[in-house]
Protein backbone atom coordinates (compact mmCIF):
# COMPACT_ATOMS: atom_id res chain seq x y z
CA UNK A 1 0.00 0.00 0.00
CA UNK A 2 2.78 2.37 0.99
CA UNK A 3 4.73 1.49 -2.16
CA UNK A 4 1.65 2.07 -4.29
CA UNK A 5 1.27 5.49 -2.75
CA UNK A 6 4.96 6.28 -3.28
CA UNK A 7 4.71 5.19 -6.91
CA UNK A 8 1.67 7.38 -7.45
CA UNK A 9 3.43 10.32 -5.80
CA UNK A 10 6.43 9.87 -8.08
CA UNK A 11 4.28 9.67 -11.17
CA UNK A 12 2.42 12.83 -10.23
CA UNK A 13 5.69 14.55 -9.35
CA UNK A 14 6.99 13.92 -12.86
CA UNK A 15 3.76 15.15 -14.43
CA UNK A 16 3.80 18.35 -12.39
CA UNK A 17 7.52 18.94 -12.94
CA UNK A 18 6.89 18.88 -16.67
CA UNK A 19 4.14 21.47 -16.35
CA UNK A 20 6.17 23.69 -13.99
CA UNK A 21 9.26 23.17 -16.17
CA UNK A 22 11.44 22.45 -13.13
CA UNK A 23 13.47 19.50 -11.85
CA UNK A 24 11.22 16.84 -10.22
CA UNK A 25 13.44 16.87 -7.10
CA UNK A 26 12.31 20.41 -6.35
CA UNK A 27 8.77 19.20 -5.81
CA UNK A 28 8.99 17.91 -2.27
CA UNK A 29 5.76 16.54 -0.77
CA UNK A 30 5.12 19.70 1.22
CA UNK A 31 6.46 22.39 -1.16
CA UNK A 32 3.64 24.87 -1.79
CA UNK A 33 2.86 25.17 -5.52
CA UNK A 34 2.18 28.92 -5.47
CA UNK A 35 4.38 30.15 -2.65
CA UNK A 36 7.40 27.89 -3.15
CA UNK A 37 7.21 26.84 -6.80
CA UNK A 38 5.71 29.92 -8.50
CA UNK A 39 2.55 28.28 -9.85
CA UNK A 40 -0.50 30.21 -11.00
CA UNK A 41 -4.16 29.51 -11.75
CA UNK A 42 -3.51 28.53 -15.38
CA UNK A 43 -0.90 25.97 -14.33
CA UNK A 44 -3.29 24.65 -11.68
CA UNK A 45 -5.96 24.12 -14.33
CA UNK A 46 -3.45 22.39 -16.55
CA UNK A 47 -2.41 20.05 -13.75
CA UNK A 48 -6.04 19.28 -13.03
CA UNK A 49 -6.78 18.53 -16.69
CA UNK A 50 -3.65 16.38 -17.05
CA UNK A 51 -4.51 14.34 -13.93
CA UNK A 52 -8.10 13.82 -15.07
CA UNK A 53 -6.88 12.57 -18.42
CA UNK A 54 -4.10 10.35 -17.09
CA UNK A 55 -6.09 8.67 -14.31
CA UNK A 56 -9.53 8.85 -15.90
CA UNK A 57 -11.01 10.66 -12.91
CA UNK A 58 -13.10 13.77 -12.42
CA UNK A 59 -11.76 16.27 -9.92
CA UNK A 60 -14.60 18.37 -8.49
CA UNK A 61 -13.96 22.11 -8.91
CA UNK A 62 -14.17 22.73 -5.17
CA UNK A 63 -11.21 20.40 -4.64
CA UNK A 64 -8.88 22.72 -6.54
CA UNK A 65 -8.07 24.66 -3.36
CA UNK A 66 -6.93 21.42 -1.75
CA UNK A 67 -4.34 20.87 -4.46
CA UNK A 68 -1.62 23.13 -3.14
CA UNK A 69 1.12 20.55 -2.52
CA UNK A 70 2.24 17.24 -4.01
CA UNK A 71 1.16 15.47 -0.83
CA UNK A 72 -2.36 16.89 -1.08
CA UNK A 73 -2.66 16.10 -4.78
CA UNK A 74 -1.48 12.52 -4.32
CA UNK A 75 -3.97 12.03 -1.50
CA UNK A 76 -6.83 13.46 -3.55
CA UNK A 77 -6.01 11.48 -6.71
CA UNK A 78 -5.55 8.32 -4.63
CA UNK A 79 -8.96 8.67 -3.03
CA UNK A 80 -10.69 9.52 -6.32
CA UNK A 81 -9.14 6.45 -7.95
CA UNK A 82 -10.20 4.30 -5.04
CA UNK A 83 -13.76 5.65 -5.23
CA UNK A 84 -13.82 4.90 -8.95
CA UNK A 85 -12.82 1.27 -8.47
Amino acid sequence: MATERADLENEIRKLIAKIFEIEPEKITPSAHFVEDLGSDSMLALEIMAALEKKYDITIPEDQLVKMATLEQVTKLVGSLMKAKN
Partner: protein
Amino acid sequence: MNKSDSEKVVITGIGVVSPIGIGKDAFWQGLKEGRNGIKPVTLFDTSTLNSKLAGEISDFKPEAILGDKGLRNLDRTTKLALCAAKLAMDDAVFRITEENTNDVGVVLGSTMGSVRSISEFDKSFIKGGLRAVNPALFPNTVINSPASEISIWFKIKGFNSTISSGFNSSLDALEYARNFLILRRAQAVLVGGVEELCEQTYKGCYKLGFLAGSVNGNKELCAPFDLRRNGAVLGEGSVMFLMEMHETAKRRKARAYGTVEGLGTSFDSTRTYQYNPRGTALKKAIKNALSRCNKSANEIDCIVSSANSTVIGDYSEAKIIASFYGDEKKPIVSAVKSMTGETFSAGGAFQVATGLFSINNQCVTPTINYKEHDARCPVNCVPNQSRPLSVSNVLVANSSPMGINSAVIVTNAGID
Protein backbone atom coordinates in the same frame (compact mmCIF):
# COMPACT_ATOMS: atom_id res chain seq x y z
CA MET B 1 11.48 71.51 -35.53
CA ASN B 2 9.55 71.43 -38.82
CA LYS B 3 6.60 69.15 -39.46
CA SER B 4 8.53 66.51 -41.34
CA ASP B 5 11.05 66.15 -38.49
CA SER B 6 8.30 65.82 -35.95
CA GLU B 7 6.84 63.00 -38.01
CA LYS B 8 10.06 61.17 -38.82
CA VAL B 9 10.01 57.62 -37.50
CA VAL B 10 12.96 55.31 -37.93
CA ILE B 11 13.60 51.60 -37.76
CA THR B 12 16.35 50.88 -35.25
CA GLY B 13 16.05 47.13 -34.92
CA ILE B 14 15.28 44.30 -37.34
CA GLY B 15 14.45 40.76 -36.22
CA VAL B 16 13.89 38.13 -38.88
CA VAL B 17 12.95 34.47 -38.71
CA SER B 18 12.69 33.34 -42.31
CA PRO B 19 13.06 30.33 -44.60
CA ILE B 20 16.28 31.85 -45.95
CA GLY B 21 17.89 32.64 -42.62
CA ILE B 22 17.34 33.41 -38.96
CA GLY B 23 18.50 36.81 -37.76
CA LYS B 24 18.87 40.00 -39.78
CA ASP B 25 22.39 39.25 -41.01
CA ALA B 26 21.54 35.74 -42.19
CA PHE B 27 18.43 37.08 -43.91
CA TRP B 28 20.33 39.88 -45.61
CA GLN B 29 23.05 37.44 -46.72
CA GLY B 30 20.29 35.21 -48.11
CA LEU B 31 18.81 38.13 -50.06
CA LYS B 32 22.19 39.02 -51.46
CA GLU B 33 22.91 35.46 -52.57
CA GLY B 34 19.40 34.90 -53.88
CA ARG B 35 19.03 31.94 -51.53
CA ASN B 36 16.13 29.61 -52.22
CA GLY B 37 14.03 28.98 -49.09
CA ILE B 38 11.52 26.76 -50.86
CA LYS B 39 11.78 23.05 -50.04
CA PRO B 40 9.62 19.93 -49.59
CA VAL B 41 7.26 20.31 -46.64
CA THR B 42 8.22 18.26 -43.55
CA LEU B 43 5.79 19.73 -40.99
CA PHE B 44 2.86 17.69 -42.31
CA ASP B 45 1.97 15.11 -44.90
CA THR B 46 1.47 16.31 -48.47
CA SER B 47 1.29 12.86 -50.09
CA THR B 48 -2.33 13.32 -51.15
CA LEU B 49 -1.66 16.68 -52.83
CA ASN B 50 -0.01 17.75 -56.06
CA SER B 51 1.65 20.63 -54.19
CA LYS B 52 4.50 19.59 -51.93
CA LEU B 53 6.72 22.63 -51.48
CA ALA B 54 6.81 25.55 -49.07
CA GLY B 55 9.11 28.12 -47.56
CA GLU B 56 9.33 26.09 -44.37
CA ILE B 57 11.72 27.06 -41.59
CA SER B 58 13.03 23.56 -41.07
CA ASP B 59 15.77 24.48 -38.60
CA PHE B 60 13.59 26.60 -36.31
CA LYS B 61 14.79 26.17 -32.71
CA PRO B 62 13.08 28.81 -30.58
CA GLU B 63 14.85 27.62 -27.42
CA ALA B 64 18.16 28.72 -28.94
CA ILE B 65 16.85 32.30 -28.98
CA LEU B 66 14.42 32.38 -26.05
CA GLY B 67 15.80 29.77 -23.65
CA ASP B 68 14.20 26.45 -22.64
CA LYS B 69 11.49 27.63 -20.30
CA GLY B 70 8.02 28.94 -20.98
CA LEU B 71 7.70 27.65 -24.55
CA ARG B 72 5.79 24.45 -23.78
CA ASN B 73 2.26 25.63 -24.53
CA LEU B 74 2.97 28.29 -27.13
CA ASP B 75 2.06 27.59 -30.74
CA ARG B 76 4.45 27.94 -33.67
CA THR B 77 3.08 31.35 -34.67
CA THR B 78 3.74 32.76 -31.21
CA LYS B 79 7.24 31.27 -31.06
CA LEU B 80 8.11 32.72 -34.48
CA ALA B 81 6.91 36.18 -33.41
CA LEU B 82 8.63 36.00 -30.01
CA CYS B 83 11.95 35.09 -31.62
CA ALA B 84 11.67 37.91 -34.17
CA ALA B 85 10.79 40.37 -31.38
CA LYS B 86 13.79 39.28 -29.29
CA LEU B 87 16.11 39.55 -32.30
CA ALA B 88 14.74 43.03 -33.13
CA MET B 89 15.29 44.31 -29.60
CA ASP B 90 18.79 42.82 -29.44
CA ASP B 91 19.61 44.34 -32.83
CA ALA B 92 18.41 47.75 -31.60
CA VAL B 93 20.31 47.33 -28.31
CA PHE B 94 17.00 48.19 -26.68
CA ARG B 95 16.08 46.99 -23.21
CA ILE B 96 12.71 47.08 -21.51
CA THR B 97 13.07 48.70 -18.10
CA GLU B 98 10.77 49.81 -15.29
CA GLU B 99 11.28 53.36 -16.58
CA ASN B 100 10.35 52.82 -20.24
CA THR B 101 7.94 49.87 -20.18
CA ASN B 102 4.74 51.94 -20.12
CA ASP B 103 5.86 53.79 -23.25
CA VAL B 104 6.63 50.73 -25.36
CA GLY B 105 3.89 49.29 -27.55
CA VAL B 106 3.40 46.14 -29.59
CA VAL B 107 1.47 45.79 -32.83
CA LEU B 108 1.51 42.58 -34.80
CA GLY B 109 0.03 41.65 -38.15
CA SER B 110 -1.36 38.13 -38.16
CA THR B 111 -4.41 36.69 -39.85
CA MET B 112 -4.23 32.91 -40.10
CA GLY B 113 -1.93 32.50 -37.10
CA SER B 114 -4.45 30.69 -34.95
CA VAL B 115 -6.04 28.46 -37.59
CA ARG B 116 -3.99 25.41 -36.61
CA SER B 117 -4.42 25.99 -32.87
CA ILE B 118 -8.20 26.25 -33.22
CA SER B 119 -8.31 23.16 -35.38
CA GLU B 120 -6.07 21.07 -33.08
CA PHE B 121 -8.00 22.19 -29.99
CA ASP B 122 -11.29 21.17 -31.58
CA LYS B 123 -9.79 17.89 -32.76
CA SER B 124 -8.73 16.93 -29.23
CA PHE B 125 -12.27 17.58 -27.99
CA ILE B 126 -13.94 15.66 -30.80
CA LYS B 127 -11.60 12.70 -30.34
CA GLY B 128 -11.50 12.48 -26.56
CA GLY B 129 -14.26 14.66 -25.15
CA LEU B 130 -13.84 17.41 -22.61
CA ARG B 131 -11.36 15.39 -20.56
CA ALA B 132 -8.89 15.31 -23.45
CA VAL B 133 -8.79 19.08 -23.74
CA ASN B 134 -5.80 20.93 -22.29
CA PRO B 135 -7.06 24.30 -21.00
CA ALA B 136 -3.58 25.78 -21.31
CA LEU B 137 -3.80 25.45 -25.10
CA PHE B 138 -7.01 27.45 -25.36
CA PRO B 139 -5.31 30.89 -25.33
CA ASN B 140 -3.53 29.94 -28.58
CA THR B 141 -6.87 29.79 -30.36
CA VAL B 142 -7.39 33.54 -30.38
CA ILE B 143 -5.72 35.73 -32.96
CA ASN B 144 -4.35 38.32 -30.52
CA SER B 145 -2.50 35.70 -28.51
CA PRO B 146 0.91 36.05 -30.26
CA ALA B 147 0.98 39.83 -29.73
CA SER B 148 -0.08 39.42 -26.10
CA GLU B 149 2.58 36.80 -25.50
CA ILE B 150 5.21 39.27 -26.77
CA SER B 151 4.15 41.79 -24.13
CA ILE B 152 4.00 39.11 -21.44
CA TRP B 153 7.38 37.62 -22.36
CA PHE B 154 9.26 40.93 -22.42
CA LYS B 155 7.18 42.63 -19.67
CA ILE B 156 6.01 45.40 -21.99
CA LYS B 157 3.20 47.49 -20.53
CA GLY B 158 2.25 49.92 -23.31
CA PHE B 159 -0.48 49.35 -25.93
CA ASN B 160 -0.90 45.93 -27.51
CA SER B 161 -2.73 45.38 -30.79
CA THR B 162 -3.19 42.79 -33.48
CA ILE B 163 -4.02 43.72 -37.05
CA SER B 164 -5.67 41.10 -39.20
CA SER B 165 -6.04 42.57 -42.63
CA GLY B 166 -4.75 39.61 -44.59
CA PHE B 167 -1.87 40.23 -46.99
CA ASN B 168 -1.66 43.86 -45.84
CA SER B 169 -1.50 43.20 -42.10
CA SER B 170 2.17 44.10 -41.60
CA LEU B 171 1.98 47.33 -43.57
CA ASP B 172 -1.16 48.33 -41.71
CA ALA B 173 0.64 47.49 -38.46
CA LEU B 174 3.54 49.75 -39.46
CA GLU B 175 1.14 52.61 -40.09
CA TYR B 176 -0.56 51.97 -36.76
CA ALA B 177 2.82 52.03 -34.98
CA ARG B 178 3.81 55.23 -36.79
CA ASN B 179 0.64 56.92 -35.64
CA PHE B 180 1.22 55.99 -32.00
CA LEU B 181 4.74 57.43 -32.21
CA ILE B 182 3.76 60.60 -34.04
CA LEU B 183 0.96 61.24 -31.55
CA ARG B 184 3.58 60.76 -28.81
CA ARG B 185 1.52 57.97 -27.29
CA ALA B 186 4.54 55.66 -27.33
CA GLN B 187 8.31 56.04 -27.28
CA ALA B 188 9.10 52.80 -29.08
CA VAL B 189 7.01 50.18 -30.83
CA LEU B 190 7.73 46.56 -31.64
CA VAL B 191 5.93 46.11 -34.94
CA GLY B 192 5.81 43.45 -37.61
CA GLY B 193 4.02 40.40 -38.85
CA VAL B 194 3.92 36.66 -38.44
CA GLU B 195 2.44 33.64 -40.14
CA GLU B 196 3.15 29.96 -39.62
CA LEU B 197 3.04 27.16 -42.14
CA CYS B 198 0.46 24.55 -41.21
CA GLU B 199 -1.55 21.78 -42.76
CA GLN B 200 -4.87 23.59 -42.38
CA THR B 201 -3.83 26.77 -44.18
CA TYR B 202 -1.87 24.86 -46.80
CA LYS B 203 -4.76 22.58 -47.67
CA GLY B 204 -7.25 25.46 -47.61
CA CYS B 205 -5.15 27.41 -50.10
CA TYR B 206 -4.64 24.24 -52.13
CA LYS B 207 -8.36 23.66 -52.46
CA LEU B 208 -8.82 27.28 -53.52
CA GLY B 209 -6.41 26.63 -56.39
CA PHE B 210 -4.12 29.34 -55.03
CA LEU B 211 -1.02 27.13 -54.78
CA ALA B 212 1.48 26.34 -57.51
CA GLY B 213 0.95 22.84 -58.81
CA SER B 214 -2.55 22.63 -57.35
CA VAL B 215 -4.10 22.47 -60.79
CA ASN B 216 -3.38 19.14 -62.49
CA GLY B 217 -0.56 19.19 -64.98
CA ASN B 218 1.01 22.39 -63.67
CA LYS B 219 4.59 22.25 -62.52
CA GLU B 220 5.07 23.40 -58.94
CA LEU B 221 7.46 26.32 -58.89
CA CYS B 222 7.83 29.68 -57.20
CA ALA B 223 8.71 31.99 -60.07
CA PRO B 224 7.26 35.49 -59.82
CA PHE B 225 6.96 37.38 -63.14
CA ASP B 226 8.03 34.25 -65.03
CA LEU B 227 5.85 33.02 -67.89
CA ARG B 228 5.71 29.52 -66.32
CA ARG B 229 4.17 30.67 -63.03
CA ASN B 230 0.88 29.08 -62.02
CA GLY B 231 0.29 29.83 -58.36
CA ALA B 232 1.88 30.78 -55.05
CA VAL B 233 4.09 28.65 -52.82
CA LEU B 234 3.35 29.28 -49.16
CA GLY B 235 6.06 30.37 -46.77
CA GLU B 236 6.25 31.19 -43.09
CA GLY B 237 8.12 33.41 -40.72
CA SER B 238 8.12 36.60 -38.78
CA VAL B 239 9.75 39.98 -39.14
CA MET B 240 9.64 42.44 -36.25
CA PHE B 241 11.03 45.95 -36.20
CA LEU B 242 11.78 48.31 -33.38
CA MET B 243 10.39 51.65 -34.48
CA GLU B 244 11.15 54.93 -32.75
CA MET B 245 10.89 58.63 -33.41
CA HIS B 246 14.06 59.87 -35.04
CA GLU B 247 14.76 62.23 -32.17
CA THR B 248 14.41 59.43 -29.57
CA ALA B 249 16.72 57.15 -31.52
CA LYS B 250 19.26 59.92 -31.85
CA ARG B 251 19.14 60.66 -28.14
CA ARG B 252 20.00 57.08 -27.27
CA LYS B 253 22.56 56.94 -30.10
CA ALA B 254 20.77 54.08 -31.82
CA ARG B 255 21.62 53.03 -35.35
CA ALA B 256 18.81 53.86 -37.78
CA TYR B 257 18.24 51.68 -40.84
CA GLY B 258 15.85 54.10 -42.49
CA THR B 259 12.45 55.68 -42.33
CA VAL B 260 9.05 54.22 -43.14
CA GLU B 261 6.82 56.87 -44.65
CA GLY B 262 3.03 57.04 -44.59
CA LEU B 263 0.89 54.24 -45.93
CA GLY B 264 -1.21 54.50 -49.03
CA THR B 265 -4.14 52.14 -49.12
CA SER B 266 -7.23 51.38 -51.15
CA PHE B 267 -9.83 48.65 -51.13
CA ASP B 268 -10.85 46.82 -54.25
CA SER B 269 -14.41 45.77 -53.69
CA THR B 270 -14.93 44.03 -56.99
CA ARG B 271 -14.14 40.41 -56.19
CA THR B 272 -13.58 37.87 -53.45
CA TYR B 273 -10.32 35.95 -53.29
CA GLN B 274 -9.29 36.93 -56.79
CA TYR B 275 -6.82 39.54 -57.91
CA ASN B 276 -8.36 42.35 -59.90
CA PRO B 277 -6.46 42.27 -63.22
CA ARG B 278 -7.07 45.99 -63.61
CA GLY B 279 -5.18 46.71 -60.38
CA THR B 280 -7.25 49.82 -59.74
CA ALA B 281 -6.85 49.77 -55.97
CA LEU B 282 -3.10 49.15 -56.09
CA LYS B 283 -2.66 52.13 -58.38
CA LYS B 284 -4.52 54.35 -55.94
CA ALA B 285 -2.50 52.98 -53.01
CA ILE B 286 0.84 53.72 -54.70
CA LYS B 287 -0.29 57.22 -55.75
CA ASN B 288 -1.41 57.83 -52.20
CA ALA B 289 1.88 56.63 -50.68
CA LEU B 290 3.94 58.78 -53.07
CA SER B 291 1.91 61.89 -52.41
CA ARG B 292 2.01 61.38 -48.64
CA CYS B 293 5.80 61.69 -48.69
CA ASN B 294 5.95 64.23 -51.53
CA LYS B 295 7.87 62.01 -53.88
CA SER B 296 7.45 61.25 -57.55
CA ALA B 297 7.79 57.77 -59.03
CA ASN B 298 11.07 58.85 -60.61
CA GLU B 299 12.61 59.38 -57.20
CA ILE B 300 12.05 55.70 -56.39
CA ASP B 301 15.22 53.67 -56.97
CA CYS B 302 13.69 50.23 -56.76
CA ILE B 303 10.46 48.52 -55.85
CA VAL B 304 9.98 45.53 -53.58
CA SER B 305 6.96 43.82 -55.02
CA SER B 306 4.50 41.43 -53.42
CA ALA B 307 4.52 39.30 -56.60
CA ASN B 308 4.06 35.71 -55.47
CA SER B 309 4.01 33.66 -58.66
CA THR B 310 0.24 33.89 -59.17
CA VAL B 311 -0.74 34.50 -62.78
CA ILE B 312 -3.03 37.51 -62.36
CA GLY B 313 -1.46 38.93 -59.21
CA ASP B 314 2.02 39.31 -60.72
CA TYR B 315 0.66 40.57 -64.01
CA SER B 316 -1.54 43.27 -62.49
CA GLU B 317 1.13 44.41 -60.05
CA ALA B 318 3.82 44.63 -62.74
CA LYS B 319 1.45 46.46 -65.07
CA ILE B 320 0.42 49.01 -62.44
CA ILE B 321 3.99 49.68 -61.33
CA ALA B 322 5.10 50.08 -64.94
CA SER B 323 2.26 52.52 -65.57
CA PHE B 324 3.99 55.04 -63.28
CA TYR B 325 7.02 55.14 -65.56
CA GLY B 326 5.86 55.18 -69.16
CA ASP B 327 7.60 53.35 -72.00
CA GLU B 328 11.05 54.87 -71.69
CA LYS B 329 11.95 53.54 -68.24
CA LYS B 330 11.61 49.98 -67.04
CA PRO B 331 11.36 50.08 -63.23
CA ILE B 332 13.52 47.81 -61.11
CA VAL B 333 11.09 45.51 -59.32
CA SER B 334 12.21 42.54 -57.26
CA ALA B 335 10.07 39.86 -55.68
CA VAL B 336 11.36 38.62 -52.31
CA LYS B 337 8.62 35.98 -52.24
CA SER B 338 10.58 34.09 -54.92
CA MET B 339 12.94 33.19 -52.05
CA THR B 340 10.65 33.01 -48.99
CA GLY B 341 7.34 31.97 -50.49
CA GLU B 342 4.05 33.73 -49.76
CA THR B 343 4.21 34.64 -46.07
CA PHE B 344 0.79 36.29 -46.09
CA SER B 345 0.40 38.61 -43.06
CA ALA B 346 4.17 38.75 -42.60
CA GLY B 347 4.75 39.50 -46.29
CA GLY B 348 4.69 43.30 -45.99
CA ALA B 349 7.23 43.21 -43.15
CA PHE B 350 9.49 40.93 -45.21
CA GLN B 351 9.27 43.43 -48.06
CA VAL B 352 10.10 46.37 -45.80
CA ALA B 353 13.08 44.45 -44.37
CA THR B 354 14.18 43.82 -47.96
CA GLY B 355 13.87 47.53 -48.77
CA LEU B 356 15.98 48.39 -45.73
CA PHE B 357 18.57 45.87 -46.90
CA SER B 358 18.78 47.61 -50.28
CA ILE B 359 19.19 51.03 -48.66
CA ASN B 360 21.84 49.90 -46.18
CA ASN B 361 23.79 47.70 -48.58
CA GLN B 362 23.34 49.69 -51.81
CA CYS B 363 22.25 46.54 -53.54
CA VAL B 364 19.05 45.44 -55.21
CA THR B 365 17.75 41.97 -54.40
CA PRO B 366 16.98 39.39 -57.07
CA THR B 367 13.84 37.63 -58.20
CA ILE B 368 15.02 34.04 -58.28
CA ASN B 369 13.81 31.10 -60.39
CA TYR B 370 13.37 33.51 -63.28
CA LYS B 371 13.81 31.91 -66.68
CA GLU B 372 11.08 32.69 -69.19
CA HIS B 373 10.15 36.29 -69.90
CA ASP B 374 6.49 37.24 -69.76
CA ALA B 375 5.80 40.27 -71.93
CA ARG B 376 2.75 41.04 -69.79
CA CYS B 377 5.04 41.86 -66.85
CA PRO B 378 6.96 44.86 -68.21
CA VAL B 379 9.45 45.31 -65.37
CA ASN B 380 13.12 44.66 -64.76
CA CYS B 381 12.79 42.00 -62.08
CA VAL B 382 16.54 41.65 -61.35
CA PRO B 383 16.65 38.06 -62.58
CA ASN B 384 18.37 35.57 -60.28
CA GLN B 385 21.25 37.72 -59.05
CA SER B 386 21.45 40.75 -56.82
CA ARG B 387 23.37 43.69 -58.10
CA PRO B 388 24.84 46.93 -56.77
CA LEU B 389 22.57 49.94 -57.04
CA SER B 390 22.51 53.34 -55.45
CA VAL B 391 19.34 53.18 -53.34
CA SER B 392 17.78 55.99 -51.29
CA ASN B 393 14.05 55.39 -51.74
CA VAL B 394 12.25 52.08 -52.03
CA LEU B 395 8.59 51.56 -52.81
CA VAL B 396 6.98 48.55 -51.17
CA ALA B 397 3.90 47.53 -53.13
CA ASN B 398 1.38 45.11 -51.77
CA SER B 399 -1.46 43.84 -53.88
CA SER B 400 -3.92 41.30 -52.62
CA PRO B 401 -6.74 39.07 -53.78
CA MET B 402 -8.69 39.98 -50.65
CA GLY B 403 -9.46 43.58 -51.53
CA ILE B 404 -6.95 45.61 -49.54
CA ASN B 405 -4.01 46.98 -51.50
CA SER B 406 -1.35 49.16 -49.98
CA ALA B 407 2.04 50.74 -50.46
CA VAL B 408 4.71 52.39 -48.32
CA ILE B 409 7.93 54.20 -49.11
CA VAL B 410 11.06 53.27 -47.20
CA THR B 411 13.79 55.92 -47.36
CA ASN B 412 17.30 56.54 -46.10
CA ALA B 413 16.14 59.54 -44.08
CA GLY B 414 17.30 59.40 -40.50
CA ILE B 415 20.46 57.41 -41.24
CA ASP B 416 23.37 59.39 -39.83
